């Protein structure tokens, strides 16, 4: 399974396969660029003190691709980027492998560094992908993680619905 969308200077993808960093880098390569910044998010083997045995990701693909493309277009415009590419892996991801890769190119490195970080933070706040962590040992049940408070998702923690919608509207204006 692989799904992608493109816009001017933007490419986003969801895939069950390994993320291919060189090909994503080639998507943003430009003779007008003096810098390409790559961010690779990898799966960590623990949460708090609990050992994580493996992680799996699910998504709402049409909505996730739409959000990813919107984020790429926002950072591209804000930082006058030559290109932005973002790919998220889905399904089981073994510990230590890439789950998300972002590549940005710009005329100068400062804009590329900043844009890469902004694209990642926006993706973690908004893209409709969910991570489930399974722990070693049978006594601890797996949990759906939530980025916004570092705790489990959908268990009554964090902000309520209204606060969340306000937050989302802020992000959409941002």
């Amino acid at each position: 399974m692989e799904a992608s969308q493109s816009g001017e200077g933007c490419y986003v993808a969801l895939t069950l396969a390994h993320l291919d960093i060189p090909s994503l880098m080639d998507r943003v390569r430009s003779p007008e660029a003096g810098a390409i910044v790559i961010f690779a998010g990898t799966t960590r083997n623990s949460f708090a003190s609990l050992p994580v045995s493996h992680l799996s990701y699910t998504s709402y693909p049409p909505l996730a691709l739409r959000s990813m493309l919107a984020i790429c277009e926002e950072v591209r415009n804000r930082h006058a980027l030559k290109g932005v590419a973002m790919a998220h892996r889905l399904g089981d991801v073994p510990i230590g492998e890439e789950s998300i890769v972002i590549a940005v190119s710009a005329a100068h490195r400062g804009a590329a560094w900043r844009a890469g970080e902004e694209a990642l933070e926006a993706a973690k706040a908004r893209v409709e992908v969910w991570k489930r962590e399974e722990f070693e040992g049978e006594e601890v049940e797996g949990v759906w993680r939530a980025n916004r408070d570092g705790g489990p998702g959908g268990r009554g923690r964090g902000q309520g619905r209204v606060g969340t919608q306000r937050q989302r509207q802020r992000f959409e204006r941002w």
Partner: protein
Amino acid sequence: MASKPPKGHFHVLYFAAAGSYTSKQVEALPAPLPLSKLFATLEGRYDGITAGVLENSLVTINLAYVDLPGTSEGGEDVMIEEGDEVAIIPPVSSG
């Protein structure tokens, strides 16, 4: 993601914690249904889902986020129509 719902129905997609709670990824419910009745309808089928999942989730209809009527930011009620795709979106954990 899902095939078309049966005539006179809309689909609800359950992601992440919502899917764990309902043990389903998708189901068809009778249409039309006012958005303001959605959570009560789901609570009637899945006891405790409002406090356990829905209060921390967002809702989309046909890939667009909607504000639930009755909250301080809620707008006009809208009708969920036959063939619509509604989704329960728990807090995301991408990256």
